[in-house]
């Protein structure tokens, strides 16, 4: 019997913290982009009122929750799914897969192709969310990293790229 032991699952607190921070940025940036960027605004306009989606890591988070409020604006609704009706949950299967995504070793498309996440909800909405995430990543990240995160790095006019980026950064950090 001395060859046997039972090992409880430990934690990966550093990785959880990193992913949680990245998700916080992402959520607020989505909120900012919906106000600043026409394309993101249009995607949200196409969603039903009160629509809420989440990006989650299985089994126990972290989470990022974004919803569309009554006036049609996108709102970052925090990291706690408790008590919220989530219409679309894009679940990353484990914390390591989340790390691969948030350190841009695997783009959203590649992560999907590699079975790293499952979509709980309507696929049509998931397509819109991925387009929004792509745009937000182009805003937030330097080109050299954003090119890893998206399939096709867009050629935006100066105004959208630099002024839009500045506005989104300000709004993200100050939560406007």
């Amino acid at each position: 019997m001395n060859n046997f032991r039972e090992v409880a699952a430990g934690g990966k607190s550093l990785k959880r913290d990193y992913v949680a921070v990245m998700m916080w940025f992402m959520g607020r940036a989505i909120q900012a982009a919906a106000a600043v960027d026409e394309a993101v605004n249009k995607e949200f306009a196409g969603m039903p009122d009160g629509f809420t989606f989440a990006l989650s890591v299985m089994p126990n988070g972290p989470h990022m929750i974004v919803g569309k409020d009554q006036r049609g604006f996108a709102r970052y609704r925090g990291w706690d799914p408790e008590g919220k009706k989530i219409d679309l949950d894009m679940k990353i299967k484990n914390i390591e897969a989340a790390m691969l995504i948030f350190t841009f070793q695997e783009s959203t498309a590649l992560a999907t192709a590699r079975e790293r996440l499952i979509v709980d909800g309507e696929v049509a909405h998931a397509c819109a969310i991925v387009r929004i995430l792509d745009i937000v990543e182009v805003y937030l990240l330097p080109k050299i990293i954003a090119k890893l995160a998206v399939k096709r790095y867009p050629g935006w006019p100066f105004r959208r790229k630099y002024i839009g980026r500045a506005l989104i950064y300000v709004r993200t950090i100050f939560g406007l």
Partner: protein
Amino acid sequence: MRLQMYFPERYEFFCPVKINSGNRALEQIPFELDALNARKPLAIAGKDAGETGLIDVILGAFRDSGIAVGVFDGVPVAPDLKLIRELFNIYRDRGYDAIIAVGSGDVADTAKVLNIAVSGKPEDIEGCAGEDLIRNPLKPLIIVPTLSGTGYEMSRYASFDGRDYASHFLMPNLAVIDLRMTVPEDAVTTAAASLAALTHAVEAYTGSGKNPAVDAYAYASIQLIMEHVAHVIGDQHDGGGRLSLANAHAMAGCAFSNVAPGTAHKLGQVIGDLCHLPPGLCMGMLLPHVLKREMSEGGYHISDLLLPLGGFDAYASTAADLRARKAIDILYDLLRDMSAASGGAIFHLWKDAQVSEATLQKIAQKAVGAGASSDIEGCMKILRDAREGR
């Protein structure tokens, strides 16, 4: 006039094994357990798994999953039913509901036989020895192979304590192939494992049980081995190569489960036992000779073998009636390259096994007795050619 693809007018194929392979594959196990409706796995491993750090890697993959893992890392070489009894008690008393076999060979066989016990009771085991005597699906079984595995662990076969078991219910639900588990082995071990897998895949691809579904697994396996084996033998740090080989072994095991074992397999098995050589090595050394013999008897499918062995360009640019010969030549070349990469170790081992004429006779008889498709005379010719290195 293009050559039509061969397919038999009647065939069956079954492979219930899911394969997950690649970067961070181990970390997907908790999700897969949930998909199999299991929450409490028991991981079993060999005595050296603790020392080599493999157990720690597995446990690391479960962090943040909320799942507690039972670990038994005392599976010895040549385990027996007493061990099964001990493991059964642990499984039952602590309420486990899945088995994870960490490693190949004895560990995988132990896991399969244990699975018979925990899915019913230990007394069931004896009645299940033989061909297709298991009646119902077993409990969840995940196998995490190492590079020394020949793919046998994915197959419907298990050999345990002197008895053989064969049933598709023994095949694991999931094979997890992760680079961290394919630790470098010595040249001969890798060569033996890959040659066993190659033999199985080639004989599935060219034998009488050939069909498009078996071919898919065999084709992928052969291609991957051809691309990587010589390099991995020469440079065990080639991680990408090791991952590809581990994949190839698993795929060969799946193909092997759907056909009857071929002549090279049977002869190699017998020689391995009699001369105390790794059976896989023997199978591989015999393979080109077996194919040569089959070609002379009209082996129809050997020319198609050039496709995975040589690649698209080689196949397309070789005239149809020359493809079989070219395929066999590529196999001879492969053996030479592998031996060169091992610093000659592979060929030395083979040549040093001084096999007398009388032993050859015995080998041929045993192989034919076990159902080899060639007759005794055919086997003798193959063995002599192989011995002479022709």
